[in-house]
């Protein structure tokens, strides 16, 4: 039930057509209902007014006759004669009939319970048919009064109009009231027919309007749906996708506009891809062409460096500088090539299950001499105590971790550096924590920018290329992982690498916190 409900809501939100049809149906139904009620009221009033006019005319005629008859009675008449006369009168009045159809006539005594009813043969007629509220009105007034009520005729209840007037007789006869009961069965039937017809017609009309609106909406929505599907395909990378254009209407114009936009985008994307490929190709070629002469220079420099003891001091120092700067030159070249490859998307992930604990330990072992030289204590912590295996490209991940640890040594002010490795069912994290200069506000995101230097005035020990962290973050992204930084001036800094256990899964959270718990957030 709830699913059905949810499905309906979903459909409602997804389908423009459903919304158009529903709202059209609701609006047309309410308009038809209001209109129907108004018309029905007018028709009812009209019919009843006509009927009432005739009924009043009939009653007035009858009243005059009865009044005259009653006054003409000799004052010597006995009570029985009077009763007889009134019963005859009643029958006479009832038999007149006219354009108002059949009606019944009652003459009631105002002083006692005598009642004269015509026709008498039907026992269902009684003085009860005269509405209780009408009699005092009739008794008080001297002219015609009327009220609506319900009577039973031929076994069915139907509305009726009761018209009444006082009959003033003489002393012998006493006072009477004359009542006409006009059953409104015919009028009721007519009104009921009108009501049924209007209800049917109204509902039919509303349905028709809804159907028409549905049809119209469909005609508009279908091309819109096609356009949406086409746009989705285009966004998914199928740049050759186009909309089919028929005719010259608005929808076709939409299609044409879409196709023009798609063509322009495809062209631009193609140009950019070509440009990026070309650029990568160029950087790659330059770097490779540079490598052969650089190798010769490198070997020559090393040869001279090895023999520098035999040179005069200036030349020996020059040989030293040459060899050292060649190292930087090479590192820069390698990093430039790597980043151009990453930029061009020309790298393939060579993923296999790798234990990040072992990897971190290996990196720390490799960098131990550097740490010892700068006086930093370098430890690997494994709080969970066992392997943390993730599918990744070991070469790239080792490069990231080595980069983070080398950075920590460089900026760690000879204070301890901790490398923590931990995992949860979905992800594995490596956190490198130093207690050095830390990062200034805003630097946590800038450290990953190319050629960014934390503090230009600071001397560089390890001579990084300024591209290390930029490459590291690209490598992390390549794995669908995160590389994040935290730091406070004087509190040191934290770099956290989080990798999904399986390539291609989305990371939701990291097994380790980025911000160290010991440091209050500023």
């Amino acid at each position, binding site marked *: 039930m709830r699913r059905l409900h949810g499905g309906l809501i979903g459909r409602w939100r997804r389908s423009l057509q459903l919304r158009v049809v529903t709202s059209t149906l609701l609006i047309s139904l309410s308009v038809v209902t209001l209109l129907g009620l108004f018309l029905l009221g007018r028709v009812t009033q009209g019919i009843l007014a006509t009927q009432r006019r005739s009924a009043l005319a009939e009653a007035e005629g009858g009243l005059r006759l009865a009044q005259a008859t009653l006054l003409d009675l000799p004052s010597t008449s006995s009570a029985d004669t009077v009763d007889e006369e009134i019963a005859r009168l009643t029958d006479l009045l009832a038999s007149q009939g006219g354009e108002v159809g059949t009606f019944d006539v009652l003459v009631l005594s105002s002083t006692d319970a005598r009642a004269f009813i015509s026709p008498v043969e039907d026992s269902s007629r009684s003085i009860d048919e005269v509405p209780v509220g009408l009699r005092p009105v009739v008794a008080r007034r001297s002219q015609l009064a009327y009220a609506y009520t319900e009577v039973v005729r031929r076994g069915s209840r139907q509305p009726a109009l009761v018209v009444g007037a006082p009959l003033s007789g003489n002393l012998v006869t006493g006072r009477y009231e004359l009542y006409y009961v006009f059953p409104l069965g015919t009028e009721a039937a007519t009104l009921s027919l009108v009501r049924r017809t209007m209800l049917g017609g109204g509902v039919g009309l509303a349905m028709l309007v809804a159907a028409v609106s549905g049809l119209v909406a469909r005609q508009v929505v279908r091309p819109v749906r096609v356009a949406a599907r086409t746009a989705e395909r285009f966004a998914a990378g199928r740049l050759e996708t186009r909309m089919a254009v028929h005719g010259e209407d608005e929808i076709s114009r939409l299609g044409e506009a879409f196709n023009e936009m798609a063509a322009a985008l495809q062209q631009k994307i193609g140009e950019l891809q070509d440009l990026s490929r070309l650029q990568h190709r160029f950087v790659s070629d330059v770097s*490779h062409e540079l*490598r052969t*002469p650089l*190798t*010769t220079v490198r*070997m020559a420099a090393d040869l001279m460096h090895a023999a520098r003891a035999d040179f005069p001091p200036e030349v020996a120092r020059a040989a030293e500088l040459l060899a050292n700067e060649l190292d930087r030159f090479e590192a820069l070249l390698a990093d430039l090539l790597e980043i151009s490859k990453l930029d061009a998307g020309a790298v393939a992930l*060579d993923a296999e299950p790798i234990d990040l604990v072992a990897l971190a330990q290996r990196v720390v072992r490799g960098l131990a001499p550097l740490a010892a030289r700068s006086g930093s204590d370098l430890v690997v912590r494994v709080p969970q105590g066992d392997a943390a295996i993730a599918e990744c490209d070991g070469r790239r991940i080792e490069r990231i971790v080595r980069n983070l640890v080398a950075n920590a040594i460089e900026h760690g002010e000879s204070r301890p550096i901790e490398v923590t490795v931990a995992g949860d069912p979905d992800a594995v994290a490596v956190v490198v924590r130093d207690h050095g200069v830390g990062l200034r506000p805003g630097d946590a995101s800038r450290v990953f920018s190319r050629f960014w230097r934390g503090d230009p005035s600071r001397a560089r020990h390890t001579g990084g290329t300024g591209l290390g962290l930029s490459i590291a973050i690209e490598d992390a992204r390549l794995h669908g992982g995160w590389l994040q930084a935290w730091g406070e001036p004087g509190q040191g800094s934290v770099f956290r690498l989080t990798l999904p256990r399986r390539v291609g899964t989305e990371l939701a959270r990291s097994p380790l916190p980025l911000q160290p718990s010991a440091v209050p957030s500023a």
Partner: protein
Amino acid sequence: MVGVRGRVLVVDDDPALAEMLGIVLRSEGFEPYFVADGERAMAAFRQTKPDVVLLDIMLPGKDGLEVCRAIRAESGVPIVMLTARTDTIDVVLGLESGADDYVVKPFKPKELIARVRARLRRNEEVGPETLNIGDVEIDVAGHRVTRGDQQIALTPLEFDLLVALARKPRQVFTREVLLEQVWGYRHAADTRLVNVHVQRLRAKVERDPEQPEVVLTVRGVGYKAGPP
């Protein structure tokens, strides 16, 4: 100078680099020979019978990969590639063509010499020793690998790899340990070397390389020898 330690054939088209390589090799006591293009490489190889080949992958004429395959077709001589490309595909192609090891330009002279020495250093003093993995028998002193009556021809490097695994049949070797023991790398190096050579070794010693019985993969760790 410590006398001649080995004959090295340098296949490289860049005259300055070739000359510099010659200077460095000679200073380390090697005896270098040079050939500048791929077409003449095989003739020079047959003529000089080198102990190690230094092969530039980018060559005019025949390219380095073809030269590599041609040499491998007739000899197990150690081949060290010189490459300017670090792209996985180039390195793997070179290794699959039969190269034992590679150095990436620009390399330091020491690095190159270390690679060449590692390829030349063989287990000199081995007593008679026979190892078994499955139905494969290894005669360590005689450098022979046989399955039944059939001899399996391995390059010296593949032989060393198989012996390293077979000597400790229960031990799982990480790629890094194998790089150190077989290739002589003291620092972490490219583990693709191990992957490619294990594949080549399997192609030769396994009955079905898809379902190895001699060299087993231990997922997430490395390799180990199959049961004897």
